[in-house]
């Protein structure tokens, strides 16, 4: 199963679900929520959830998942030409 999948896929999966689980655990352990904690003067959920997880992480993973397969293909193509 998933034989042939580019290895970068599993890196992206680990980032996506790893970060989600870490933030869920931090929130549940906080008991009253994380909004009273500030990051750069901004209540923490607006930074780690409503910026990092909803926008920066998805576009970073989307970038990983097109950049590395394209890079691999270019390397294969250049190797093919040299041979």
């Amino acid at each position, binding site marked *: *199963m*998933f*034989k*042939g*999948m*580019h290895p970068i*896929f599993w890196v*992206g999966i680990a980032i*996506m679900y790893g970060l*989600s689980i870490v933030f*869920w655990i931090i*929130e*549940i352990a*906080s*008991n*009253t*929520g*994380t*909004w009273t904690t*500030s990051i750069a*003067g*901004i*209540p923490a*959920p*607006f930074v780690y*959830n*409503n*910026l990092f*997880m*909803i*926008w920066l*992480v*998805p*576009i970073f*993973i*989307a*970038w990983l*998942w*097109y950049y590395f*397969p*394209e890079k691999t*293909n270019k390397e294969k193509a250049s190797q093919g030409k040299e041979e």
Partner: protein
Amino acid sequence: MEVGQVHPIVVIFAVAYFVVIFGIGWYSRKAAASPMEYMVAGRSVGPFVNGAGLASAFLSPASFLGLPAFIFLLGYSFWWALSGIILGMPLASLLTAAPLRKYAPVSFTDYYADRYENEKLVRIVTSIPVIITGVLYITLAMVGTALFLMAILRVPYFWSLVIGTGAVLFYVYLGGMVATMWTNGLQGILMTIASVTVALVIISTFGGFQGLAEAIGNNNPKFWLPPGSTEGASHPLMGIWTGMVGFFFVWHYGFATMPYTVVRFFTAMDINAARRATFWAAFFGGLMYWGLIVIGSAARVILETMHPIMGTVLEDGSKVDSAVGVLKYLQGYYGCNAAAITDYSMIAATQALQQPWLLGILVAGGLAISMSTVAAWTVVMQVIIGRDWMVKILENKWANDNPVKAMRMWIIISLVVCFLLSINPPAMVLDLSGWAFVLIIASVGPGLILGIWWDRATTAAHLSTTVVFTFATLFSWLYAKFVLGSPHWFFLSEAIFGQKIPTGHQVYWIPIAFIFFIVVSLLTKPNSEETVKKYSLDLRYD
């Protein structure tokens, strides 16, 4: 500005939006000369337009109206549902977008018919949940279009429906997928601008993020509480972690498996463009959801401190003294019960800010997100019924000789049927749109993803999974709604645990469906080596 007034600038924004949409439809009418142009836009769409279009098609009025309403009701923990939706977008990149673009089908059911070696039965079984979902989503999106026209421009609900349906019919009929792609691309940018602009004005109104967070916490002290807090719960559905995590996954795998997004990967100019399109979809979708979270979180405090309706004395002598009271008043004022009162929370909060230009942007963005979903599902339905059913299954000669005419006929029929349903939609239709997501991912999702990524996926597994989980998801959802009081309680929770356990839209069926598919595949006859090589192994490599 009074509730009943419409500022000219709002009308100008709406008229400008319709002029551009009609223009795109008229300009793309040449697409009807070629069935391939009409069905898959000639496979020539670049990643930026495709990505913006994917975001606007995938994110429906259920996003624009429903998700802020859910945050209004359930509190902070529901933010994770929105993160789950956007985090799920990149998953399509490697799982389905690149392999399916390499395969280059025309219809959603083509891959299933080829991979599972059956031209008719597999198409029939696969298309049934798709058609059910299509009708539900087109109806939902038509209602959303009408709500924006009605609530912001004061056009009566029926005539709002006529205008919205007529506009979509015009450009989809003329230009098929070409018109849908270009209008969706523009609509994706518009809805993002609308959401972000309204959110920035809200943050500014409260003096920054800190002021906003404090205002929300002071107004509703339970809003920020996480699941399991000893201080209580923001809502019973968020009382334990299964509620928060369950809602994260309800829509998470939809982008990689829903027909109205998957068919867009067929239109990409090449495999790289298909993968890159998911980047732009996450870019626009993420920005829009950033805004929706701010709006949904602030809606209650805005309504209760700034809305002109607050404090109004009603006929029975009582006063409007809460956000829910404001929304109830507005629903009565509009005289329309097509949506839950909380679905008006976003529009009402924006009205409370009393900036006509902001309402103008919101009406353009709201119409964009609603009409883009109607169009996206309509092009799926026209190909599934006009081509797959009439030509491939029923072998109709007229449809075979006149493919564009057959599809246009089904565009009209689909829109007329959904228009009639939208006139007085039972609340069930709108509620069931949530079930539809779990239905598609659990019934036809395993056959698509494992069909590509597992040599051992079999025809029997796909057929049985589709049938079993179409019924299982529907039965459990209805049971939970009518017996337990909400479709978001695990339907057997009282029987097994003696208490209600929250699981958004019976989401646990998704992993169960994948396990069921694997077990049945291992117990049944594999497909031929030639088929597995052509439609599984070869698609995995560029």
